[in-house]
């Protein structure tokens, strides 16, 4: 009797309608591309680019998209037995004890490059940064290169087996890339801050990295800001005060992307059992409001947040080029009232010619700039 009722089509339609009407139970802002409504014109319609853009715009408007994303990640979690999680478009890996890693860090730590290749790269990068430093010196702007610590260096024993169970030579992470770069930067007198060292020497890897995120805690970035302020202080003690950390405080409120990935991947249950604390650096407050231009990635966002908390700078006085190359006009304009240019990247950027290429581009901007005070 029951088979006479054709229920399947109704269920099918119900799923489609629900996906358009059901509100999102999760927030995925910032982790999914936001597409703008495309403007219609005949040319873009004929080459189907309008249709492609419209499809993306419309399907990303689906209210229940976050629910579907979480459902997908849950299925992956089950299929991978919770041991090797591959979510966030395959960029995140879950290691032992549920520790999350961004795969790029794991790749750069094992087998991405060799020590020799890295030395060659560091030497070339130092050469280019030296030229950039000299061009900036004409404007009275110091340059600093900084390397963010890698979570893999502190939690290597938790890395997924796929990365560690291979015979590809020793691990190369920030622990190795830092000293190599430091050597070559020193030869060229390019100020370099290896943020691995201060975190490692304090033995505070646990406090510097959240288990449930792939980034850093505010404390981890705070320790690095302290090291950075020390380098700036060495360059110009009158202009750049030395920041001091008074202590460390604990909070159960995740901010600054500390729980971003756990939230996105819906792997709360593993984290609800304890490990609910995030760490903040307590700075001795100053009020200096220095101007900085940052060229870098997600780590600089945390550094900038710490700068604001410590009173070292303010939101308005920091220019951030977040994972993008500024245009020539943008860059030259940003240098006008700047106290320092800081190039900063995570360990993955130091095993690629990332900073060499950035230096080349910025050199070309400065060499082409007619307002250069040293030009005449």
């Amino acid at each position, binding site marked *: 009797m029951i088979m006479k009722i054709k229920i399947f089509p109704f269920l099918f339609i119900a799923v489609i309608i629900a996906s358009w009407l059901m509100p999102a139970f999760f927030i995925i802002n910032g982790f999914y591309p936001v597409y703008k409504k495309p403007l219609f014109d005949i040319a873009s319609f004929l080459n189907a680019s309008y249709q492609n853009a419209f499809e993306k715009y419309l399907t990303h408007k689906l209210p229940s998209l976050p629910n*579907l994303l979480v459902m997908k990640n849950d299925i992956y979690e089950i299929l991978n037995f919770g041991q090797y999680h591959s979510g966030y478009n395959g960029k995140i890996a879950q290691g032992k004890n549920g520790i999350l890693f961004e795969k790029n860090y794991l790749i750069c730590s094992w087998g991405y490059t060799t020590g020799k290749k890295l030395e060659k790269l560091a030497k070339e990068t130092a050469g280019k940064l030296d030229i950039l430093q000299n061009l900036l010196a004409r404007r009275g702007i110091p340059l600093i290169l900084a390397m963010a610590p890698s979570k893999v260096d502190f939690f290597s024993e938790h890395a997924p087996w796929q990365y560690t169970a291979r015979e590809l030579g020793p691990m190369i992470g920030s622990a190795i890339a830092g000293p190599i770069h430091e050597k070559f930067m020193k030869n060229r007198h390019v100020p370099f801050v290896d943020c691995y060292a201060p975190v490692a020497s304090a033995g505070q890897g646990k406090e510097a990295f959240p288990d449930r995120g792939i980034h850093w805690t505010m404390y981890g970035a705070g320790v690095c800001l302290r090291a950075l302020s020390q380098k700036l202080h060495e360059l110009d003690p009158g202009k750049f005060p030395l920041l001091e950390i008074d202590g460390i405080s604990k909070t159960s409120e995740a901010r600054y992307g500390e729980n971003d990935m756990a939230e996105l991947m819906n792997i709360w249950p593993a984290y609800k059992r304890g490990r609910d604390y995030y760490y903040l650096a307590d700075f001795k407050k100053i009020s200096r409001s220095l101007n900085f231009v940052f060229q870098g990635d997600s780590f600089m966002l945390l550094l900038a947040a710490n700068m604001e908390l410590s009173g070292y700078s303010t939101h308005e006085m920091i220019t951030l080029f977040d994972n993008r190359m500024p245009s020539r006009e943008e860059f030259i304009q940003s240098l006008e009232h700047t106290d320092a240019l800081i190039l900063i990247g995570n360990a993955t950027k130091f095993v690629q010619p990332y900073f060499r290429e950035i230096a080349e581009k910025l050199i070309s901007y400065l060499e082409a700039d007619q307002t250069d005070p040293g030009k005449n």
Partner: protein
Amino acid sequence: MVFSSPFFISVFFPCLLVFYVAAGSHFRNMVLLVFSMLFYAWGEPKALPVMLAVILLNYCAALALSRQTYGSRFFIFGIIANLCILFFFKYLDFIVQNINLLLSAPGARLLPEPHIPLPIGISFYIFQAMSYLIDVYRGQVPVQKSLFRFALYISLFPQLVAGPIVRYSSVANDLGRRGFVAANFQEGLIRFCIGLAKKVFIADSLGYVADCIFDSQVNSLPCLWAWCGAIAFALQIYYDFSAYSDMAIGIGKMFNFTFPENFNFPYAARSIRDFWRRWHMSLTAWLKDYLYIPLGGSRRSFATTCRNILIVLLCCGMWHGASWNFAIWGLYNGLGLAGERILGRISKNWADNNPCLLLKRLHRTFTILFILIGWVIFRTETLDSCVLYIKIMFLGNPDHSFYSLPIVWENCLTYSNAIFLIIALVFSQPLKNVTFTSVYKSLSLQIGVFLLFVASYAFLMTTDYSPFLYFRF
């Protein structure tokens, strides 16, 4: 647009269902035609005039050839015109590139390359149109006097861009006024959902593995992973294409059309000949009826039969694309089929139904190996990399241990992909009591299919990686 795109599932398909069900039986064909044109134009508006021209050309040619006077002339004109259109859009670039390669001596004047974009699905709808013309000429089907119905036959969206190649005779009656049969609607929808799940879970997961391996440097491949890549691609292309066929047949059934089956467990084949009876059946049937038999089939001398097989398989390879690897793949299969015939002549035991179990097993193993190598030829981009890949499969890679794991593949070697690989292997063979009919009859299996649909929908809406291999043919 493809069936496994978020836009199709969440917008286009529901809108079509609403309009189709709301329209009375008088207007259902109208709704289908409008949505078919929209479906095609949405993905490639520039190619729409080509399809409309093919519709008009074949409609007029069939009407003209059905008259007594000069009928055969119109028939020849229609066939040549169809082949010219196909040649112009699909093969002209390839021919010019190869002529330029031959002329590439210093100082030689090269021909300008036309760079003609390939209209989506042209190989499918041209073959359908040609089958119609030939059948009308042979008197096997009556001429369709309604341009509207003929346009619907050619442009019917479920089979428009990736088949199956539907003969006019199999849908001629359905093109008239059709009723709405709830059971067919439900069964079609279930088949569509099964196809979608096959595509999203199995074909895409295996595609990820195959892409990882085939896109890496061939000389860095360890032996184990070369085999893994070949198996993954063999399963990917089967599940990808058969999933699309399932979706097409399912949608057709929802609207009361009966499309031919396209696959019958090809990897359960006992011989190469058996494989070609089970793989892309609508294409092989087309080639058999309209090329192999007119060439003489197997009714003439043994040498002529072998020649015919080689010609047909070469055409089959080239149908897949204008590229040397498709031509070589076709010839390779042709040689395999011809070789099997020669062996069959030498030894009666080397036949499909030989009585010796050991020989049977050997033959089947050889068939699977033969097919796998064929897919390596199909998938690799250059002849050099193809030869090297096959060499590594059988002789190993001296620079790498059998199983060493290159780090760049960390994304594809997950438990989930391994699970899907096992599922794909299991379901590539016929299983007792697991058929579409058993799903249609069992409520619990239907609930399972529904849950699969929900999961596929979640994957589809949130994943960017969903290539469809046969779309480009």
